[in-house]
């Protein structure tokens, strides 16, 4: 009922705006997502039918390349009217004034505060700055652990009781699950999601009381013991330690859906469920997979799950005010279908009404994600986060692959990270 009322408000707002009608052309760049494309193209058709003076051109890029293409375009002053990026990559655009704030009335709200109130606490923080809102979330998820139950049983484990709750257990279980030929791994127990260190590696460090940035954002790499324990763990995980996985194997989450006896567990987001369904319906139906919470260390001081991973739709500050307005209206129109995004693409908009809905409750393992989200937080954003990601990558690969000691890797990480920080002071 409440949702229906909200929908009406949006429609009304959109209707009033249609009176002024110079032709408006909106370019919209986004990353490739096979499940999302047909849905959004349908929204574009409908929106254009409602407002014939608006034309929308939707362009998709490989997700490994979109950051680069957007940067080039923005650097040249030719950015698209709207785009979405992973929040750590998007943050510099906000800080550098390249994205435009929305006006609440454009998207059918009375005030910015009422928008904040409609979303889960803190989930709009990354796009909120000095009383203005610069983005709306397309999706927000956390990484939880997906499990293939069959292989647990195969090695004599009961998936429902023996699943790993701690990182120490994760290593033990993985040692039982791994199949190798000599040094070469044919089936991994679990493997990390390398590259996305901000989400999981930092969470592991924080579990032990460490942090990447001090609360004031002035110093990098806090808490030696925590960092060293995590780096030692990674070293043990890699080919120079217990040889359980490595960044050079195919990402575990990509293999998981195929159920080909190559990975047992992987770290991934909620949307994986929808991808299992489209890529391997038989596996989806078999019920041989499940989702378990993000593990913690035995000696953890805080129980945190992986950080949020989120994409926000943003609008180019260089577009004309009229285009900005229509772009925000279009974004609001698309996002006013949270249930379809959820059921068809597996994207969670962190809206209170959605998370309280029956549709969400009916999602398999929605409860696991909801509880992990409750013990999750947003990573501390910094304009240099894209570079910090690279430094974390360097540190992890140094200990896992290159035989650098955790102490040395940590020292390098600290020096480089603080150098970068100094440049932004």
């Amino acid at each position, binding site marked *: 009922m409440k949702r229906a009322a909200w929908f009406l408000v949006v429609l009304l707002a959109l209707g009033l705006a249609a009176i002024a009608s110079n032709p408006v052309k909106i370019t919209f760049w986004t990353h490739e997502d*096979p499940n999302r494309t047909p849905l959004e193209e349908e929204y574009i058709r409908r929106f254009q039918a409602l407002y014939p003076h608006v034309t929308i051109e939707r362009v998709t890029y490989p997700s490994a390349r979109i950051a680069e293409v957007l940067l*080039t*375009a923005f650097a040249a002053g*030719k950015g698209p009217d709207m785009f979405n990026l992973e929040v750590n990559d998007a943050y510099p655009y906000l800080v550098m004034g390249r994205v435009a704030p929305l006006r609440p009335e454009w998207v059918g709200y009375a005030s910015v505060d009422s928008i904040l109130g409609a979303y889960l606490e803190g989930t709009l923080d990354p796009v909120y700055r000095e009383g203005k809102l610069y983005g709306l979330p397309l999706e927000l998820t956390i990484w939880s652990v997906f499990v293939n139950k069959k292989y647990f049983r195969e090695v004599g484990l009961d998936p429902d009781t023996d699943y790993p709750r701690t990182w120490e257990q994760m290593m033990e279980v993985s040692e039982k699950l791994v199949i190798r030929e000599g040094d070469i791994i044919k089936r991994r127990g679990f493997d990390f999601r390398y590259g996305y260190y901000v989400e999981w590696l930092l969470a592991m460090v924080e579990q032990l009381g460490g942090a990447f940035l001090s609360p004031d954002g002035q110093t990098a790499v806090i808490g030696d013991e925590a960092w060293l324990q995590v780096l030692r763990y990674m070293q043990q995980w890699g080919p120079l330690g217990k040889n359980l996985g490595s960044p050079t194997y195919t990402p575990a989450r*990509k293999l998981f859906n195929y159920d*080909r006896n190559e990975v047992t567990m992987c770290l991934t987001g909620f949307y994986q469920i929808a991808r299992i369904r489209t890529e391997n319906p038989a596996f989806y139906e078999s019920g041989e997979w499940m989702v378990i919470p993000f593990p913690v260390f035995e000696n953890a001081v805080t129980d945190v799950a992986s950080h949020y991973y989120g994409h926000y739709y943003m609008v180019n500050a260089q577009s004309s005010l009229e285009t900005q307005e229509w772009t925000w209206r279009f974004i609001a129109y698309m996002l006013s279908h949270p249930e379809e995004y959820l059921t068809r693409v597996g994207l969670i908009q962190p809206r209170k009404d959605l998370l309280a809905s029956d549709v969400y409750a009916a999602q398999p393992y929605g409860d696991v994600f909801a509880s992990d989200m409750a013990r999750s937080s947003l990573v501390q954003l910094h304009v240099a986060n894209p570079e910090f990601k690279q430094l974390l990558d360097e540190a992890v690969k140094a200990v896992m692959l290159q035989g650098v000691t955790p102490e040395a890797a940590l020292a390098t990480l600290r020096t480089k990270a603080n150098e970068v920080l100094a440049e932004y002071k």
Partner: protein
Amino acid sequence: MRQRNAVRRGRSALATAGVWLVLGVVLVYILGPLVFMVTASLMPAMEVTRIPYRWIPQGFHWQNYWQAIRGNDGRFFFVRNMVNSLFVATTITLSTVVLSTITGYGLAKFRFRGRKAVMLLIVATMMIPFQVVMIPLYIITTSLGMQNSYAGLIVPFLVNAFGVFLMRQYLLTFPDDILDAARIDGASEVQILWRVVFPSSWPAIATLAILTFRSQWDNLIWPLLIAQSREMQTIPIYITLFAEEKFTDEGAMMATAVLASLPMVLLFFGLSRYFVGGAQLFSAQKG
């Protein structure tokens, strides 16, 4: 004597065997990956990373090829992107060949003030890494309104310094007498260029054409920046988009790779004698 001959023959047989062995290793190194590509394209994904790898596929997994052409979204952009690639690469090749020959001829056969400076400039241009010019080039091209158009894909590559350099080196060896004879016969400079220089530069032109076509067929970064719509994109983008979500389906990935290589294979075998014959021009380097 006979014994010594036998020893020598034995030794040379050994040497020959050694040479063939080395050659065998090199051939495996060169052809192995290609054979791998073709065989893997015929296999279901599981088989591609099997230990040991089966070099002879068990049956023909044609679904890979269907998947490659159909695309992940089932919209068959493969054909359109292939046509785009062919059109863009062909146009660039034609213009490069024509402009390089004209400029190379001007540099090789005319003495004019500033010639050395021009030559230096062109040699320097050969060395510019693409990363250096990427953003300014993007600004220029988009300012000219060529975003997401064939013009945007083609215009920045109309001619390249290597082509000019190559044609100049070739034309240096072109006999002056023939040009002078044509002049005495009253031919204008443009006529000489068109009737004498072009026809007799065929081997060099063919080589340049093949090299240009090849490098354009390969171009990824630029089309990615300039061609936004799926309708405008080229084959290298198609492959990266395909690999995006389907890289785990290694078989289908390799099928895409095989299909994307087909035009080059045809060109390569069709014009193979120019690869070989055209390269002769490098031996006639002395200017």
